[in-house]
């Protein structure tokens, strides 16, 4: 290895005190400087941190944004979410091929550019989007992309037409984007004007017990998907008698089709931090972590500045709001590209520098989480709700929404509609109402809650968006009648194949089987027996998987089988009389060919390589 590479590794380890728990940060710095984490870096990091080399390898190879082979000086990650694919993705891919002469997975001969694909980067309301190093851009056109490539070649950074002119704080010199917020409707969370910090002021004068009681009275349920009562989780942590506790904000926002947490972190970071501080007051935590998905690293400087400001104002640190013994601070943990790290126990492991694999419960994180301490994990929006509750009062909050789903909800609306963006509504509005607001004139299908939610058709548009009926973390992706439902389903199953952590058999292998059968059906080779095959497989995956990813991954198939049966029926043939069901001569020949080469190009992208 190059000596300078080795120096970079040593510097990275030293910067984080050779702490194995900061392995993600160490790997990031090595990746940024050396543009890869290669075999020598693994050895050096292992030596410096005292970790077994294979464990460093295990972590580096787990995350999407660390690579064993060098990336370009400008590492382009093109978002290949289904919405992007339907809105200009192919044109961008053509430009990249044309201008750089490379396809995804490749690097230019001069090492200047690499191109890779990446799942939803949180810009579904302004597609198509991409990441390049720490920059992000949406609403791209071929012309804009050409311009971006020229800027990078000429000046080594994107020009002002990419880094300035963003809406609201997006144009802030610490954020440097041209992104839009697309806030279409404001309510209790987005709409209360200038922040007064009165929520925190009020809470600082209350005891833990009183804070928990207020949250209970508000009826607040988590906004990250599961809808667990917020007071209950905090109460569990509060009851633990330990030296310290931890409050974590889940800003992993990995569900394709969601982006409202991005907008909250852009426009209301103080509200998020205020909510975290109140939660810390409730449980008695002194440590806070904001787990920020790597795709949002462009927000880091902005968020760090807000944290510094809060420390200066006495809203973080010691004796918060002048209250004796109220001590709390927050650090930002950058993820490294793994949807599963949104699952709270995987997120905690990731914060500890490990592979983002969920852990077995019990113990529950609220009893034993980050570094063994009682840890509560909540969604970005949940913390905003907490702050507002202590500002407007539990009763006013509970008056909004429905009995089991109090307050307002932020919806991330995208796809085939004229007004995509963030909509804040009290819980309980119907799908049809939201479709009208976003001006989706020809909606044929809506993905509610993202791939792990439901794909519904027109006969379900009167259902209500709330925990009592259609529960959702906020993704709301509209597809019009020209879209191919099965292609959407296929894209989502592919997403789960790519994002399964691989810990347990049914999810690791079963999703690959689902994908194979969807391909067969889409190719027009499906048989009626394939439906039972899919259902049975889905049943085993859902029933025996270890975490929420496997419990929900077959849903795109199951919900479309229920809501769009004709789409499948149109493509399926009865099994050929006389021939064995499932037998496909072409496939059998292909298999023989693969076997002869000992390789299956379809499913084994890099089985022979190391880190992907």
């Amino acid at each position, binding site marked *: 290895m190059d000596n300078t590479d080795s120096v970079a590794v040593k510097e990275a380890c030293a910067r984080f005190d050779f702490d194995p728990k900061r392995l993600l940060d160490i790997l990031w710095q090595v990746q940024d400087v050396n543009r890869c984490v290669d*075999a020598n870096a693994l050895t050096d990091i292992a030596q410096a941190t005292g970790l*077994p*080399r*294979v*464990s460093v*390898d*295990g972590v580096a*190879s*787990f*995350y999407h944004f660390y690579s064993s082979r060098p990336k370009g000086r400008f590492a382009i990650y093109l978002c290949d979410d289904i919405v992007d694919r339907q809105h200009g993705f192919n044109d961008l891919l053509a430009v990249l091929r044309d201008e750089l002469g490379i396809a995804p997975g490749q690097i230019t001969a001069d090492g200047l550019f690499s191109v890779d694909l990446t799942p939803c980067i949180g810009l579904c309301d302004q597609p198509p989007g991409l990441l390049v190093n720490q920059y992000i851009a949406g609403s791209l056109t071929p012309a804009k992309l050409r311009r971006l490539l020229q800027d990078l070649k000429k000046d080594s950074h994107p020009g002002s037409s990419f880094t300035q002119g963003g809406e609201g704080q997006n144009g802030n010199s610490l954020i440097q984007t041209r992104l839009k917020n697309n806030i279409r409707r404001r309510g209790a969370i987005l709409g209360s004007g200038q922040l007064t910090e009165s929520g925190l002021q009020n809470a600082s004068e209350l005891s833990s017990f009183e804070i928990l009681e207020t949250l209970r009275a508000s009826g607040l349920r988590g906004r990250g998907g599961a809808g667990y009562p917020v007071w209950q989780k905090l109460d569990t942590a509060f009851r633990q008698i330990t030296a310290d506790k931890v409050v974590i904000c889940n800003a992993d926002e990995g569900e394709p089709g969601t982006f409202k947490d991005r907008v909250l972190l852009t426009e209301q970071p103080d509200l998020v931090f205020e909510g975290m501080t109140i939660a810390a007051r409730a449980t008695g935590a002194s440590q806070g972590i904001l787990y920020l998905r790597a795709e949002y690293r462009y927000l880091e400087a902005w968020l760090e500045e807000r944290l510094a400001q809060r420390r200066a104002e006495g809203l973080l640190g010691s004796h918060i709001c002048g209250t004796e013994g109220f001590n709390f601070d927050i650090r930002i943990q950058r993820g490294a590209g*793994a949807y599963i790290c949104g699952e709270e126990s995987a997120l905690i492991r990731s914060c500890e520098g490990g*592979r983002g694999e969920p852990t*077995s419960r*019990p113990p529950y994180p609220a009893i034993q989480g980050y570094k063994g301490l009682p840890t509560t994990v909540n969604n970005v929006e949940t913390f905003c709700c907490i702050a507002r509750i202590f500002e407007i009062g539990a009763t006013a909050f509970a008056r909004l929404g429905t009995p089991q789903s109090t307050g307002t909800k932020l919806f991330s609306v995208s796809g085939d509609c004229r007004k995509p963006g963030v909509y804040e509504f009290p819980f309980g509005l119907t799908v049809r109402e939201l479709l009208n607001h976003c001006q989706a004139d020809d909606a044929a299908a809506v993905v509610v809650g993202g791939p792990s939610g439901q794909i519904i058709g027109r006969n379900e548009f009167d259902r209500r968006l709330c925990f009592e009926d259609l529960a959702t973390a906020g993704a709301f992706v509209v597809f019009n009648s020209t879209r191919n439902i099965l292609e959407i389903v296929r894209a989502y199953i592919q997403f789960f*194949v*790519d*994002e*399964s*952590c*691989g*810990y*347990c*058999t*049914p999810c*690791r*292998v*079963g999703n*690959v*089987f689902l994908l*194979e059968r969807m391909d067969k059906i889409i190719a027009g080779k499906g048989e009626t027996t394939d439906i039972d*095959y899919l259902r*049975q*497989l889905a*049943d*085993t995956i859902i*029933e*025996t*998987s*270890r975490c929420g990813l496997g419990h929900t991954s077959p849903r795109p198939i199951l919900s479309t089988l229920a809501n769009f049966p004709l789409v499948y029926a149109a493509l399926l043939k009865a099994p050929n009389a006389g021939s064995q069901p*499932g037998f496909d001569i072409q496939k059998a020949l292909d*298999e023989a060919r*693969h*076997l002869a080469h*000992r*390789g*299956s190009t379809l*499913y*084994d*992208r*890099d*089985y*022979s390589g*190391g*880190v*992907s």
Partner: protein
Amino acid sequence: MSETLASTFTIQVDGQTVTVQAGQSIMEACDAAGIYIPRLCDCEGLVPQGSCRVCCVDINGRIQAACTQPAAPGQVIGNETPTLNAHRRTLVEMLFHEGNHLCPICEASGRCELQAMAYRLGITQASPYPYLQPVRPVDASHPDIALDNNRCILCGRCIRASRDIDQKHVFDYVGRGIHKRIGVSAARLAETDASLEDEAIARGTCPVGCILRKREGFDTPVGQRLFDRRPIDLDNAVQHHIPTQAVPAHIESDPP
């Protein structure tokens, strides 16, 4: 609360009453009571990890892994039910199709837990699933040990034995999802400090024919091996991992 803290309590397993010592997992309680729950990644003496999911049981209507789920008072558990065994068959078929398993030419045939589990669950004909045919490297660099990743089922028994018993940490998982594999703590096995004395390398730790002790392969002829003679069950599935007992030889010496 006081009931859960009592030192013993009972649960129901397939209609049978089982006495549990507080702190036991469902698997441990059933093992002690002589009730076999099928398993592949779990192994006595190693911390359970709940990854193969073959030990899935029905606990008051919810399916959970018996090896990691604590037993709790009043649990009504289904184990040998048609539904669970159907799930287990699917899981075992997944493991077969995920790797490259050609039993007739495999050195582990007859003492392989995956093969034995397939027989136990009645997998006698081809399954409907596709073969994934991965390209996985064989590492024969070590003078005494070979690693044929084609047959690895990612049970992690070698990882835990090496880390917790041998204190060497020769193995760990690398990669993610379907690309997840077993890695070794160097470029190849020969450069690690793995040795035949390791518990991780002891026969029976690896349930399949992935970790191979060179020159010992065909010491017992195929056809006369443990699972050739009797189905996998409680008596012969549980390995005893005690640090001082380097090579548990009891498998082959079992009376016919």
